[in-house]
């Protein structure tokens, strides 16, 4: 299929249009409960954005990194300080600069990837997780010498207009996530993405073709950290509405890693699917606990069951479908299409028959 606009094919544009209609028109019209925005949709968008960051470094460039939450913390606290100390930047300006500050950390902590790989790199990148959190805790300046430990995030004001209702914040997150997702797709499908994947699949050959390992890896880490930084800022300002380093602990890094793997390594839409699954699954379990067992099961047991199921799913996906839920979705569509075409419905072409 030929791209007709930027790198997007007709199919992509239809998908994009469907997503936009759904998220801009249908969701705001039909969902009125605040709970859905404050507890599901906003964190979903923020975490999906961070997962795209994780995808870039892990799914596309093949560098096992574990420290997304550290970069998110860097972005969140950078945002707080920028709004506090450089108010002229404005919300959007601060968001971009926060991302850039996180990217600088990404470059710093991405450097070990030149020497170590695999599980050792994962351990090395953990440094970012602990160092950034430690730094914020240690130096009071980052928290504006607030002794309570939890700082309230400033209100979001864009071009003089406040964005404080859940719906307004949802739109802020949606706009940022949409733009950054499109940019990520452009990169992933263009020459930048090819360099990343070449380094992932066979670094020696990539180097022999003139792909610089240093530049490609560091670039992937920087872009990944930029995405995580922006996601962290949105996470703090739209979802948590407060800033505390504990919110960005290693558990969040693992959560993002799970989202990345379950969603499907090396896919952008997998980031959204994975994030939705990890966020919604506990909600579903709770609903089952409350409605089917009428609260007979203790909440702590439910959260343990959740961990067990996530762990099992990770193992199952790693063995049977390393490309994750995005691939399952793709297969489902594929088989539906071939069933439709074999049953003689006109206008549906089987992608298998075409070859």
């Amino acid at each position, binding site marked *: 299929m030929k791209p007709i606009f*930027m*790198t997007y094919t007709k199919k992509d544009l239809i998908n994009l249009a469907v997503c936009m209609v759904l998220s801009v028109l249908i969701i705001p019209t039909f969902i009125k409960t605040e709970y859905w925005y404050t507890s599901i949709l906003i964190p979903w968008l923020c975490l999906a954005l961070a997962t795209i960051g994780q995808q870039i470094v892990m799914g596309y460039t093949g560098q096992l990194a574990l420290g997304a939450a550290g970069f998110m913390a860097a972005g969140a606290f950078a945002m707080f300080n920028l709004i506090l100390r450089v108010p002229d930047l404005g919300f959007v300006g601060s968001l971009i600069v926060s991302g850039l500050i996180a990217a600088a950390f990404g470059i710093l902590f991405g450097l070990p990837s030149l020497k170590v790989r695999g599980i050792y790199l994962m351990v090395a990148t953990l440094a970012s997780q602990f160092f950034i959190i430690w730094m914020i805790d240690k130096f009071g300046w980052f928290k504006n010498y607030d002794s309570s430990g939890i700082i309230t995030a400033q209100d979001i004001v864009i071009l003089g207009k406040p964005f404080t209702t859940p719906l307004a914040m949802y739109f802020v997150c949606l706009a940022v996530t949409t733009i950054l997702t499109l*940019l*990520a797709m*452009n*990169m992933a499908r*263009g*020459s*930048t993405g*090819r*360099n990343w*994947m*070449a380094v*992932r*699949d*066979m670094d*020696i*050959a*990539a*180097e*022999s*073709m*003139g*792909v*610089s390992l240093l530049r490609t890896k560091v*670039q992937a880490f920087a*872009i990944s950290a930029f995405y995580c930084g922006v996601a962290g800022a949105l996470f703090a300002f739209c979802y948590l509405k407060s800033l505390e380093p504990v919110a960005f602990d290693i558990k969040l890094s693992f959560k993002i890693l799970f989202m990345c793997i379950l969603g499907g390594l*090396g896919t952008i839409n997998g980031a959204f699917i994975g994030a939705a699954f990890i966020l919604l699954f506990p909600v579903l379990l709770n609903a089952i606990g409350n409605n089917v067992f009428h609260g007979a099961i203790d909440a702590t047991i439910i959260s343990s069951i959740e961990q067990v199921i996530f762990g099992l799913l990770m193992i199952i996906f790693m063995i049977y479908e390393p490309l994750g839920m995005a691939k399952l979705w793709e297969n489902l569509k594929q088989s539906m299409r071939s069933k439709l075409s074999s049953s003689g419905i006109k206008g549906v072409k089987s992608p298998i028959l075409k*070859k």
Partner: protein
Amino acid sequence: MAYERKFKIGKPILEVNNISLAFGGVKAITDTSFNVLEHEVRAIIGPNGAGKSSMLNCINGIYKPQQGTVSFRGQVVPNITPNIMAQMGLSRTFQNLALFKRMSVLDNILVGRKLHTKTNFLEVALQLPKVKKEEKLNRERSEEIISFLEIEDIKDTPVGKLPYGLQKKVELGRALATDSSIILLDEPMAGMNVEEKRDMCRFILKVNDELGTTMVLIEHDMGVVMDISDRVVVLDYGKVIGDGTPDEIMANQKVIDAYLGVEH
């Protein structure tokens, strides 16, 4: 050869001077020198473990020899790395296939266009007009190579799913996409049947003939080597034991001994 070559064999493009390479105590290559002339097809042959692949890895900068230098177009290349050699116009294929397995055939070949891609990631993210123009040119060149190698029907297939012979073709395609002046082929025909070998020979000669690309190849099939190469260098135990035209090599007693063994 009877026919007139479009690109006449010229001056040395690549010179290997007194290279010695050892892994710990094991000497892979000892004080080896030979040259490659521009536009020629040069074969490196030798029994297993003779140091042929190590030689290519030294030329390409993957291994760092303890002694000796590599000159490109008369200039000694200091601090050889695969990247620097690629920039100077040297491309290669690998013995055990080093393709990007999860990427499609077209994408693999497009990676070969890396050095003809000047736009940075920001420009790519924003899809500026110059990115589109460059991408279009690179795609056109890649499609040309794909149709030249007669692999149009598999261009969207992930390389990892292809049979070995086709993967070898794709690897040649990726090397061609760099538009390099010299290509090193490490056993381009290993594991191929007669027909596939004939095809591969045809492609190698055609590239050499039409584009004037200098070809250095390692090959085990003597029939093929003697047929397509202009000059042959023979390595045994990391040393040059013969260097010359195919006819000279076939008459060389040392080479015959190395291949058939010597009576004691």
